[in-house]
């Protein structure tokens, strides 16, 4: 008897949930003037368009050297932004750590800097920095750098706080200084995880760099934007595919590095 009641109650809940969801979906499509059926109906057409226009032609392959050059520029820029951000994040990470941080004020400061730079999307940073630095590669570099500092600081804080503190206690007892303890106990202990996060950041930054490049007019993003706006669709296809290939390559590479160090 009781069991049946529970089952009916659960069934009712599911029905209510589905009804609510349907009403919300309907209301939002009415408000935004979006017709789902129309969207689905145009899908085949869109796919046909993609396959007939976004094709790499022989003509576009002539542009490959320029694209590769831009791609390498973008990758190097992402790596530079990540490595410099790593240095800052390391300092901020130690400051912000709950276990080995020196003072509360510095900890709050570090975590504030981290969340400020992390919670504003990289694209927004690029647009903000564009106003003061103009359209050049420095702006792109800075946008990636700021985003990386936020993300890496956050992950370094977590890595440090999760690591065992026992060696820290032992080194304190030998009379080691604070910096010695950080350098010789904390960092060696956290190094594999930290490297793993840095590699992840490089991958993310290569992806983001394309987007940032469109805004700042540098790197591979600029090539994409250029071909797109001149309706050179084979060029767009070539850029897209080379980005995808580069990202996959970097991912494979960093996965291999991870396997070796972890």
């Amino acid at each position: 008897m009781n069991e049946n009641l529970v089952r009916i109650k659960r069934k009712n809940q599911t029905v209510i949930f589905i009804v609510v969801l349907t009403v919300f979906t309907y209301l939002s499509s009415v408000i935004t003037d979006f017709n789902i059926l129309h969207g689905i109906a145009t899908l085949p057409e869109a796919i046909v368009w993609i396959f007939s226009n976004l094709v790499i032609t022989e003509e576009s392959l002539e542009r490959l050297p320029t694209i590769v050059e831009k791609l390498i520029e973008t990758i190097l820029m992402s790596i530079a932004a990540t490595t410099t951000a790593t240095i800052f994040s390391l300092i901020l990470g130690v400051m912000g750590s709950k276990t080995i941080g020196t003072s509360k004020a510095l900890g709050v400061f570090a975590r504030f800097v981290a969340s400020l730079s992390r919670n504003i999307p990289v694209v927004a940073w690029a647009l903000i920095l564009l106003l003061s630095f103009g359209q050049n590669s420095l702006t792109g570099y800075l946008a990636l750098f700021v985003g990386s500092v936020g993300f890496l600081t956050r992950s370094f804080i977590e890595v440090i706080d999760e690591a065992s503190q026992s060696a820290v206690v032992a080194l304190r007892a030998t009379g080691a200084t604070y910096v010695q303890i950080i350098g010789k106990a904390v960092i060696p202990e956290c190094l594999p995880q930290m490297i793993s996060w840095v590699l992840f950041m490089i991958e993310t930054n290569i992806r983001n760099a394309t987007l940032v490049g469109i805004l700042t007019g540098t790197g591979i993003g600029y090539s994409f934007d250029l071909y797109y706006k001149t309706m050179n669709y084979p060029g767009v296809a070539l850029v897209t595919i080379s980005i995808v290939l580069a990202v996959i390559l970097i991912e494979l590479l960093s996965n291999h590095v991870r396997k070796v160090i972890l």
Partner: protein
Amino acid sequence: MPLLTVEQLGKSYNTHTKVLRNVNFEVEAGEFVSIIGPSGAGKSTLLRCINRMVDIDEGAVIFNGADVGMLNKKELRTLRTDIGMVFQHYNLVPRLSVIENVLHGRFGYKTTLQGIMGRFTEAEKERAFYLLEKLGIAEHAYKRCNQLSGGQQQRVGIARALIQEPKIVLCDEPIASLDPKASTIIMDHLKSITVELGITCIVNLHQVEVARDYSDRIIGLREGQVVFDEMSYRLTEQRTDILYGTKSKPVTQVRELLTV
């Protein structure tokens, strides 16, 4: 003058419970002293007050003529170079090699930069190898610490304490995570530190028999107070019962278990 004097030492981590209450004892240079008592009696806290890994609330600890509680940061650093410490869980850096972990014991004598750059003198390195040889783990010198067994790791811990050239070595339950065979090896090494090198040893122990076999003197701690402080052979079974609250006081035993 004794090497270590503990006077009316009191310590509490919060307002209602006192971990240590009016602890008094003296330790002469070259003594091997065991501290025994139930879990939560304050053994670890007492040990950590001696090198001020925890702050002293009441009373004083006088080590080698210096009032430990009154030292400034720099003086405290110098004091800690004179005090080696051995831990239950070894507290090594697992990813670093044995020899690196041993040399960590020299940081107290180095400037920050020398320490970070890993600048050790030839004499220090030779001493490190000599100690590893003595402790029977020289062949593991270049292995990572996490590849060693518990007993071997503890020997690395002892080597790290000894390379400090300490006047005293504090051991916080050094054999609590080890099997009987490894425990015997570690206790023998600790005993030889006192006998051969003349370094004072204070060892927190759970095993009453081990304490009686190895130490010159035993200090019994119960609820933060010293209830026994005499030569080892005078620790009779009856007094052990009082110390641990076993047999004679079954009611307190229940409470003991609850507080663990």
